Each structure stands twice: as structure tokens, then as C-alpha cells.
């Protein structure tokens, strides 16, 4: 009390200057470490892009870009006259397998999200949500062999009696659907739950029934988040390697018969990279060209999704 009154009366001035204390040194070290962490991830990204592009440029010095982009036959590993570098079958196979996966995952994922967010009791939610997240934790190789040893022989050939090849798009597509289902469901669930309850109350207050509230107010209000989730799921399916490699086969197929064997870009890369090819040969360089194509496709998809989300995003206070 006495000291305070002395200070107020103009006694010894409190020291407020900045000094080198152990605390300030520690803060600087932490700051430097955090900056280094950010720097390393940026450098890695740049490194990947540069190495990818360098080899891709080398590839296009040997193969014409239009022959690559517009050709309809993909057989870079074949010998002599059979060699062909038309990437369309790989692109179409990738999109086709992704579409099959989405056909499975979108209705199931949105259905379970709407159930979880709007209808499930807290108890049901406590059980279902972790199980759904567990599904996301299954290694893709397990899912691939599940497709090859269960979906194809037991489900498709046995129960449904469909005459599919051992490696086929249908089986791989179903497995891809299971793979991306948790992504669709959890992200849609999060977006639905982020819709403020005042909107639900407003709709109920106007005499809307529960399904009307959910489908006409809550779902549209959550649409931007749901679409972002779908795009993320699609990117996941486009880039998926192991499931397609194990269950889809190795046939760069431009057709649409789901009973046939299909290959996507990532599976081609994996298959070729472990094969017996000489470094810097044109076969080797195809890996990088396909990798760049995959990279660009995913990039475009993400850009579209960001635009879509911005356009439809509603900001709630």
C-alpha cells in the first residue's frame, strides 16, 4: 500500500524496457523451429513439382503431346510397333472407376450423414460415428484384397451371378465406394450439424414437417460443405492406387463395360515403377508424364471445388 502510493507520487520508475531474458531467447528459438517446419513442407512441394516437370518435359521431347493427349491406345510397355502412348484410356478408366465409387458412396454417405445429423439419437450416434470413422482407417490393401477375394467371387459371381472377369471395374468400383464412403459421410455430417439450429426452428415454426425441414432448409444450407466433401472423396478415388491395382486389373480400357478389367493412372504408375525398365528410357518417363496428368487433374478438381464452395458458402454470424 505504501509502495504503491510512493510510485504514484513519482518515486522509482518501473522498468518497462525490453531486455534479453531466458524467456525471450526461448521464444525466438521456437519461432525459428516453426518457420523451419513450414519451410520444409513448402520446399518439399516445390521439389516434387520440379522433378515431376523435368522428367515430363523430357518425355514430351520423345513423344508428341497430341499423340499423348488424344491417342486412344495405351501400351507404352509393348515392343516394337505395338508401342502406343495415347493416355485417353487411362484418363477414362480413372474417371470411370471414380464414378463407380461415387455411385456407391454418394447415396450411402449422404443417407448416413442425414441420419446421423438429423435423426439419430445421441446414443445411436455415439455408436455409429466411430464405426464409420473406423472404416476410414482400413488400409487400402486390405480393401483391395477384400474386393478380389470376396466382392468378385462371392458377391458378384456368386450371389448376383454376374459374369465378371477376375479383375474387373465393378469390384474395384465397389471397393472404391467403401473407401470414400467415410469421407463423404463424415464431411456431410459435419456440414449438416454446422447449420445453425435457428434455421431449423424457423422452418419448424412455419409448419414444415421434419423431412421438409431437412431436405428444403438444412440440406441446401449445408450444400457447400457437402460438395467440398464430395470433391475430396472424388480426389481420393482418382488418386487411389492399391485397390485398383489389386482388384481392377492392368488393362488400359477405353470402354464402359464394368465386367471388364480396367486400369487407372495411379495403378499404371505403381505397376510400371516396380517392373523391369531402364531408367531414363521412354517407358520410365511415362511414369512422370502420367503423374503430371494425375496431378493436374486433381488440381483442377480442387480449384473447381474451392470456387463452388466460395460461391455457395453462407456465412452465419
Amino acid at each position: 500500500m505504501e509502495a504503491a502510493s510512493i510510485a504514484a507520487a513519482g518515486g522509482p520508475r518501473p522498468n518497462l524496457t525490453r531486455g534479453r531474458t531466458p524467456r525471450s531467447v526461448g521464444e525466438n528459438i521456437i519461432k525459428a523451429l516453426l518457420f523451419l517446419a513450414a519451410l520444409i513442407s513448402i520446399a518439399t512441394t516445390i521439389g516434387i513439382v520440379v522433378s515431376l516437370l523435368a522428367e515430363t518435359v523430357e518425355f514430351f521431347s520423345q513423344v508428341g503431346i497430341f499423340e499423348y493427349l488424344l491417342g486412344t491406345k495405351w501400351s507404352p510397355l509393348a515392343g516394337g510397333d505395338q508401342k502406343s502412348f495415347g493416355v485417353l484410356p487411362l484418363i477414362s478408366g480413372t474417371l470411370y472407376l471414380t464414378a463407380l465409387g461415387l455411385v456407391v458412396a454418394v447415396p450411402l454417405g449422404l443417407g448416413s450423414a442425414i441420419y446421423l445429423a438429423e435423426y439419430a439419437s445421441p446414443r445411436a450416434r455415439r455408436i455409429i460415428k466411430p464405426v464409420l470413422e473406423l472404416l476410414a482407417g482400413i488400409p487400402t490393401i486390405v480393401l483391395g484384397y477384400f474386393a478380389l477375394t470376396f466382392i468378385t467371387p462371392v458377391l458378384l459371381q456368386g450371389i448376383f451371378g454376374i459374369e465378371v472377369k477376375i479383375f474387373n471395374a465393378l469390384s474395384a468400383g465397389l471397393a472404391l465406394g467403401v473407401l470414400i464412403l467415410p469421407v463423404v459421410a463424415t464431411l456431410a455430417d459435419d456440414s449438416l450439424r454446422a447449420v445453425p439450429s435457428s434455421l431449423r426452428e424457423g422452418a419448424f415454426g412455419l409448419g414444415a414437417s421434419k423431412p421438409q425441414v431437412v431436405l428444403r432448409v438444412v440440406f441446401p444450407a449445408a450444400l457447400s460443405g457437402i460438395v467440398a466433401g464430395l470433391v475430396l472423396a472424388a480426389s481420393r478415388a482418382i488418386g487411389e492406387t492399391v485397390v485398383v491395382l489389386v482388384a481392377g486389373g492392368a488393362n488400359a480400357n477405353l470402354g464402359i463395360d464394368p465386367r471388364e478389367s480396367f486400369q487407372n493412372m495411379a495403378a499404371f504408375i505403381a505397376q510400371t515403377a516396380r517392373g523391369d525398365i531402364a531408367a531414363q528410357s521412354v517407358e520410365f518417363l511415362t511414369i512422370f508424364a502420367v503423374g503430371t496428368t494425375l496431378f493436374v487433374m486433381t488440381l483442377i478438381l480442387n480449384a473447381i471445388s474451392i470456387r463452388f464452395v466460395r460461391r455457395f458458402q453462407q456465412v452465419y454470424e
Partner: protein
Amino acid sequence: MRQVTERPESSSEPRAAESAAGAQKPPAAEPADGRVMGPGTAPAVEGVKAPAAAPDSKPVFAVERLTVSYAGRPAVREVSFGIEERRITALIGASGCGKSTFIRTLNRMNDLIPSASVEGSVRYHGQDLYAPDVDPVQVRKRIGMVFQKPNPFPKSIYDNVAFGPRVLGMKGEMDEMVERALRRGALWDEVKDRLKQNAFGMSGGQQQRLCIARALATDPDVILMDEPASALDPISTGRIEDLMFELKDRVSIVIVTHNMQQAARVSDMTAFFTVVVDDTGHRHGEVVEYDETEKVFTNPADERTEAYVTGRVG
């Protein structure tokens, strides 16, 4: 939104549309199934000093010994009074006294809270709102609600107003219904040229009037307002109060407000709620006094009411 572009001619005759609206009969006061109760269902006065209703007005709600609990703990207890038709009834009292809880029982909004339970009875034109065969969706079609914070849907202005008629499957020209509701909500002149724009682009006061217009679009018999102006500036508040006066010849209005002047200005009847602490230390709300607004504010029967309305407490 779509309808506007398809039938532009309907908006070129706004006057005709309005006079047609004016000629329409106000919404039926009786429940559709004709289960009208006799005068025996007049508001009960048990336990609370509720006066007999004015002789020229009929009760739209008769609340009897109503207790609402959340997870078994009462939030508001033993409320009994009648709410009169075509009048503005204000519910006042300090925070936590159960006004909002009470108003939400009048259109079964509390059903949305799983832990809420209701004892006693709420009769709407004589019909028990909590009878087992009553569908809350049907109740809310007749008894609209406006909330504390404006909550327009993230849709166009037009689609916001058209939402109610659409979900209820109302017959008739949608453009006309939207225009009529916006006119009754005193918003038409401000928004008639931008019906297709997102409602989120409006000011807070406009959004709240849109929410009122949206509630009016379904031709409700009662509108419940839970602190409709608490987030608005004085000018927007004044517009909403003017609007309430215009609406009251056709709808009954119940309003929760923390603003004493507002309650005194707009309401015909006032119910004063207060917080009571019971023997176990649990707090719940009760109705202390219910009377004509003028009497509540100038000559209250209970000293707690007097302390509150004169600003000595709360």
C-alpha cells in the same frame, strides 16, 4: 424466384392483388375439425391473480397450471392465464424467468428439445394442444413464430416468403401470396425490385420484417414473437412495432420483450413473470401478475411487479 421470371405480369398489378387480399376473410378462428369447446374453457384463474378477460374478447389460448421442465427440473411453474384474441399480449420479466420457455409451449416448439416435458394444459380455441392425437406440425401451421435473432433461410427473398405456402401445399398464385405477405410485413416497397436476391444481403431490421412476412404468408391465426426487436436499432424496432399494430386486427400476437417501454407501447395485456427460488435452491419462473397493460404499468397489484416496471429491480 422461378415464378417471378415465369409470370412477370402478376407483379404489374400490385394494387389489385392487395385489394383482393384485403377482401379475403381473416383466417378461420376455429380449428378445422370443428371441435370448438364451450365457454367452460375460459381461462382459469387458479393460483394466479388473473383478471377475467374483457367481455368483448374471446380467449385464443387458455393456459391452465402449466409447468414446463427441462430434464425434470421445472423452468416455469403453474402458469394459468388466458390470452385474448386479436390483441397484443406482452410477456415481461427478468432473464431466466421462463418467458421464452412459456411462449414456446404455445406452438409446441419445445417438442424440439428432447429433455423438455410439459404438465398442465394449453387450450387453443378450446382444443388441448398437448392431446395425444394433436400433430405439432398442424399446430405450427396456425401459430407462427418470429425469433429473437432474424433467421432468414439462405435463399432468395422470394423463396423465403414462399417457403411456408410451399411446404403447406397452399393453393393459389405464389407470386400473389408472396406479394401480399411482403405488403403485410411492410417490406414490399423496399424489396419488390430484388426479390431474387439472397435474403442475407438485407439489413438486420429488414431480415426481421422478412421473417414476420414469412410467418404471415401462411395466414396464421396467432404470431408468437420471442424478443423480435432485441437485436435491432430503434428505427427498425419502431417499424416492427408499427407493423404489430397493423396486424392486430387480424392476428393475435404474443410478444416476449425485455424492453419495458416496448411492452407499454405496444401491448394490450401484460403478464409479468418472475424468478422464484424454491426450498431446494432451484430457480424457476412463475407468473406474478396478468392484467391490462395500463394497469400493470400504472397500478400493479403486486409489489414485485411494481418494483420491476419502475426499474427498481431487474
